[in-house]
């Protein structure tokens, strides 16, 4: 697993309950603000926290494609899911613009899959990233008020769940193991 700037893995930070906004702080994109969100500044902080995670997932699927892994994923291969992550990023960028915030500039990212090799390892890494993504979106639902932004985030989170289902199939696990999808790691 690649390492975030301060030596703490992003996934570890999320599992420790750092949450979306703190994850944003980890990537140096917004100050952490732990209070529940209700105004535009909080929405901006939450969205800014999600964008780097989407970029990271897109890069991970790209890396999987470059490694020739998971060619049958979604019937089209990893680039298909990468393109969906890029669409998510676009939508989040559009949300930032509508909130009157500056776009988030791309940063140099550490290697998305940390140089690991085999197909199964790559699928497991992607599962970990997607699970973290789902839990980040779940926290965002708690931090933001209702309305179209929440509906957009729900649509995206549901799509990440679909990616999870396909990755579980790729590693011969039950695709829909539980009635609630919270991003908890599969046992």
């Amino acid at each position, binding site marked *: 697993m690649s390492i975030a700037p301060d030596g703490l893995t992003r996934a570890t930070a999320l599992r420790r309950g750092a949450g979306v906004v703190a994850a944003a702080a980890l990537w140096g994109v917004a100050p952490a603000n732990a209070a529940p969100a209700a105004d535009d500044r909080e929405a901006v902080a939450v969205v800014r926290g999600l964008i780097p995670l989407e970029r990271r997932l897109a890069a991970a699927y790209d890396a999987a494609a470059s490694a020739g892994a998971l060619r049958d994923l979604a019937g089209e291969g990893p680039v298909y899911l990468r393109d969906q992550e890029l*669409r998510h990023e676009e939508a989040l960028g*559009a949300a930032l613009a509508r909130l009157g915030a500056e776009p988030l500039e791309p940063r140099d990212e550490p290697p998305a899959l940390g140089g690991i090799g085999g197909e199964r390892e790559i699928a497991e890494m992607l599962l970990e990233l997607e699970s973290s993504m789902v839990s980040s979106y779940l926290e965002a639902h*708690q931090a933001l008020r209702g309305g179209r932004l929440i509906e957009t985030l729900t649509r*995206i989170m549901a799509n990440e769940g679909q990616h*999870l289902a396909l990755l579980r199939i790729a590693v011969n696990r039950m695709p829909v193991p539980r009635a609630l999808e919270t991003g908890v790691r599969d046992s």
Partner: protein
Amino acid sequence: MKVAPPPPELGLRSRRGFLLASGATVGLSTVLYGCGGDEPAPGEVPNLERDSAVLAPVLDQEYAAIVAYRAIAAALGGEAARLAARFGEQEEQHAKRLTAAVERIGQMAAGPLPDDDYRRGFPDLASADDALAFAVDVERTAIVSYLAASAKLSTAALRAEIAAIVTVEAEQLSVLLLERGLPPVPEPFVGGDPLPL
């Protein structure tokens, strides 16, 4: 006022948990937050009666899905039938969770209609493909229902719960599309492209 935390299985941290008033009376719309010094989100005043009204059709849709999956499983064989039965069990859990969520905010949850009331709207399931096509419709209907609710709920813990449930509906949809030999993840935004914010 006594308050109840969100369900622990959502994995939401108690410090940011939302504490909901129980025994809400008609017109009550304030929520007390008392865990770890959290303050209510500025400007967010949950409307518990409205949230209950928003969830009512979603809950009824789950009851319909439970009956539908029984019919779908009966029309399938082998592994597909087991899959449908499993999805039906998950819909039952969704209905229980929605009922509990409504009751947690001090409102009354409606029970299911008689099974025949739901069956009246079902198509003929003359073949396995009919059954799978119907299952896809069931999931798409569920997703539309949940997405509509997500934008309207005023209680944060309910929004999170809805999101966790509809994500499973989307996962089920993908599996069913695969069973039908169709693209399992046809769109990056489940339910269609989002409307402009």
